[in-house]
């Protein structure tokens, strides 16, 4: 990675969404000051997050679920920095799911860093102040004369030092200061923040230690497989339970009733199905093959991808369901434009394809259930499980276990409710595990989308009109999960005559958030169509974009086009934009703002005469604020997001026939492999803004950067994903 700093006149003071209030809340919990005193009765426990042992080992709670985004490392780094301890003395401890104590525990939206940047540093600084107070009391000196360094309190005037470890009992009895009153370090004094730091679980990962949900075992645990209908929500008409039970090692097989309603399923409700429970998961899978299930009819059993496309095309020719936003008067603007372009774009449903399939271990006993889940958002599962089991949410305990990839899939807790229901029925602890086929056919997919665009440019090469009839998925006028577009989504407000119309298909396919939700499809549409308009205007795609972003800041609150422009200029410089390219090679550019991060990327491609596509290199520039918390983790997220986007562009497509998903494995749903992974050069512009997250925003622009590069190399415009390389033959 490389970085550059920019300073701007206006320092924006924006407290993270967590803010100081959340800190007070998290420090004291629900019980307030009394709860705090009780909590501090534990030896060395300074607050909800920090416990220091006499040997100087610092235990810090990692509050959020870890699914590979590195948060189990980076959030404790924030606390450790302000506590002023040596990172090698820190042990992180995964929290249980308890939002009353910890506030939101959610992996999603790249929100963890902006939410905790202030609040968790204040947690550390508060604990540090307690250490100083304890030392000052011992030394009978004013606390203001004490400093700290690497787990010690220092009194320079008298040359005295004392370790946090030896102060820990005393410090735990000190009344904590008001978190809002503690002084935070200046960034020049950071010793942990900004230092490349390996993940806290790295040693366990490379030696194969059991860390993941799938690895978790409890005594007496049985294994379960849960067979659901190919058509989402279809009920079991009949099943040969006896045949499954006859398999050696099978303990039970039974039908569970569940919701037929796809909206309920998207909220984590139990789907109808057949459970097979055995002393081995492999055995349960063998028995499941003998069930011969007949599924009941379901209203969506005739839907298909082909039908969706035909419906979308028909809808595009009619009046939209509604107009989401209209600015200026696009129709006359189009009529009077110097050049107009019309194009239909489409991206398909795609699957999260977590490498660790969905799984959950549940142990139900006497009206209470304990759960071990790699969920990205465990808290909502408590109410769903309680409802399913007829118990109260208080009697549901959820432990958070490392997840083998999240990408949004584990925001839905379907495996949690399945495990809980099956454990209750068999009266034993149970691990539910999806097969690869279950994983592919029972996802909450990134919604497909159809965009019918019209745009116009004036004789000066400026976009004057932009009209999009967006055909998405939804019911009764409500979008299916993550199938919407925000009214202010770019280029709204940047084009004088702008209109976003929407129509919806009721498809019966469960949808959900998938890494960089909405953006992962919309950036492809927008940045491709901008490229088309640049070509129509006879302009360089970079210059055209800069001109488009040149609007008064007041016109686009929440979108700082100066930051976007800076990333574009820098990526152009890094990629040597505008250089002469050999035949059938090209550079493509795209930018996107999402999850508070500004990204611009350039892709270089080479297209062989037979259509084979070689993505040679990707340059990426971002502005996610003034501080990269953990550069090692940040680079990994950016590179992984870029390659994930390339995987979307090249391969990923879920199709539906007779209401069911057709793909079942990595054979018919390929993912990017190492031989197709290009080199990546990554740069951070450190602007004077609070730091924001990196789990998602690097993904969206790479897709149009690649397809725009293909256009530059071949003159073929890619308007449908994934890229059909057969179209690219010379």
């Amino acid at each position, binding site marked *: 990675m490389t970085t550059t700093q920019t300073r701007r006149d206006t320092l924006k003071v924006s407290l993270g969404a967590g803010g100081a209030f959340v800190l007070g809340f998290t420090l004291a919990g629900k019980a307030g000051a009394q709860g705090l005193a009780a909590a501090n009765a534990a030896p060395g426990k300074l607050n909800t997050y920090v416990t220091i042992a006499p040997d100087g080992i610092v235990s810090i709670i990692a509050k959020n679920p870890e699914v590979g985004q590195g948060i189990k490392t980076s959030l404790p780094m924030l606390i450790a920095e302000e506590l002023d301890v040596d990172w090698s003395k820190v042990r992180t401890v995964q929290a249980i799911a308890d939002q009353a104590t910890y506030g939101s525990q959610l992996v999603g939206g790249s929100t963890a860093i902006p939410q905790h940047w202030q609040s968790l540093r204040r947690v550390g600084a508060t604990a540090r102040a307690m250490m100083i107070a304890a030392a000052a009391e011992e030394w009978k000196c004013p606390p203001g004369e004490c400093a700290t360094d690497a787990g010690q309190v220092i009194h320079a005037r008298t040359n005295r030092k004392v370790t946090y470890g030896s102060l820990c009992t005393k410090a735990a009895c000190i009344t904590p200061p008001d978190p809002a009153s503690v002084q935070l370090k200046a960034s020049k004094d950071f010793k942990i923040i900004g230092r490349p730091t390996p*993940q806290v679980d790295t040693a366990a990962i490379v030696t194969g230690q059991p860390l993941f949900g799938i690895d978790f075992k409890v005594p007496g645990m049985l294994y379960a497989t849960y067979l659901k209908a190919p058509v989402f929500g279809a009920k079991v008409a009949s099943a040969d339970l006896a045949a499954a039970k006859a398999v050696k090692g099978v303990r039970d097989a039974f039908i569970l009733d569940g919701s037929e309603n796809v909206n309920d399923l998207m909220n984590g409700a139990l789907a109808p199905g057949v459970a097979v429970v055995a002393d081995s998961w492999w055995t349960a899978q063998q028995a499941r093959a003998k069930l011969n299930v007949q599924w009941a009819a379901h209203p969506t059993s005739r839907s298909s991808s082909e039908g969706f496309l035909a419906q979308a095309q028909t809808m595009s020719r009619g009046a939209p369901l509604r107009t989401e936003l209209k600015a200026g008067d696009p129709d006359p603007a189009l009529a009077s434009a110097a050049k107009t372009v019309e194009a239909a774009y489409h991206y398909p449903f795609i699957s999260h394809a977590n*490498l660790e399939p969905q799984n959950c271990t549940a142990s139900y006993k006497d009206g209470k259930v304990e759960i071990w889940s790699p969920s990205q958002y465990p808290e909502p599962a408590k109410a769903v499980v309680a409802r399913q089991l007829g118990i109260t949410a208080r009697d549901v305990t959820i432990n958070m276990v490392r997840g083998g990839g999240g990408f949004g899939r584990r925001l839905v807790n379907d495996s949690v409710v399945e495990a809980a229901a099956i454990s209750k029925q068999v009266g034993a602890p149970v691990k539910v595990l999806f097969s690869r086929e279950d994983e592919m056919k029972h996802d909450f997919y990134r919604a497909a989308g159809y965009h019918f665009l019209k745009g116009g440019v004036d004789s000066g090469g400026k976009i004057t009109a932009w009209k999009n009839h967006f055909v998405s998925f939804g019911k009764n006028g409500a979008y299916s999960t993550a199938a919407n577009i925000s009214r202010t989504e770019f280029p709204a407000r940047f084009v004088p005559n702008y209109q976003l119309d929407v129509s919806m298909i009721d498809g019966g396919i469960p949808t959900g958030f998938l890494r960089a939700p909405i953006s992962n499809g919309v950036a492809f549409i927008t940045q491709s169509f901008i490229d088309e308009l640049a070509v129509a205007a006879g302009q360089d795609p970079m210059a055209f974009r800069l001109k488009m972003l040149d609007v008064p800041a007041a016109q686009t609150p929440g979108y700082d086009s100066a930051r976007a422009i800076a990333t574009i200029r820098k990526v152009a410089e890094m990629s040597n934009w505008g250089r002469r390219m050999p035949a059938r090679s090209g550079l493509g550019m795209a930018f996107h703002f999402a999850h508070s991060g500004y990204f611009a990327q350039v892709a270089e491609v080479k297209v062989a005469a037979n259509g084979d596509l070689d993505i040679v290199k990707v340059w990426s520039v971002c502005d996610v604020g003034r501080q990269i918390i953990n550069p090692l*983790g940040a680079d990994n997220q950016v590179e992984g997001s870029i*390659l994930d986007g390339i995987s979307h562009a090249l391969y990923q497509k879920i199709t539906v026939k007779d209401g069911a998903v057709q793909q079942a494995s*990595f054979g018919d749903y390929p*993912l990017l*492999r190492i031989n197709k*992974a290009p080199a990546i050069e990554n740069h951070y512009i450190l602007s004077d803004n609070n730091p924001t997250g990196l789990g998602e925003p690097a993904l969206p622009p790479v897709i149009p950067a690649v397809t725009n590069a293909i256009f530059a190399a071949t003159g073929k415009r890619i308007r449908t994903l994934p890229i059909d390389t057969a179209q690219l033959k010379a």
Partner: protein
Amino acid sequence: MAYTLNVNGRTVTADVDPAKPLLWVLREDLNVLGPKYGCGLAQCGACTVHIDGQPVRACITPISSVGTKRVVTIEAMENDAVGKKVQAAWSEIDVAQCGYCQAGQIMSATALIKSKPKPTDADINTAMQGNICRCATYTRIRRAIKRASGQSEA
């Protein structure tokens, strides 16, 4: 059927169905949890182990075919001169994101370096193509293999 196996240098027994794949015998019967289930079809490589030194997908290897061959998993790589270097490179570069595939990646990389002590980019592409990393840590995997084999990482 009772099988006597050689796993990570120890003799162990498992009384299981002959068709049960080695992966599930390791995970369920022998509590060796490093090899992971990803697909059950030899498409992702998360289950990769060494059998007599060769990288093998344990998810499609019936236990009845293993016999007395030496089965080695990620858990024993610390005792393997090459495996240890690969693990060290993986740690230093901090290759992993979620980490789920990395045991399989390390097993494939170790087998590669044993057969080709200085693997080229093309060798790496060929040998590592069977291992999916859903988090796409491929650029770091490439660097880690270069480092573990004592080559320049550029």
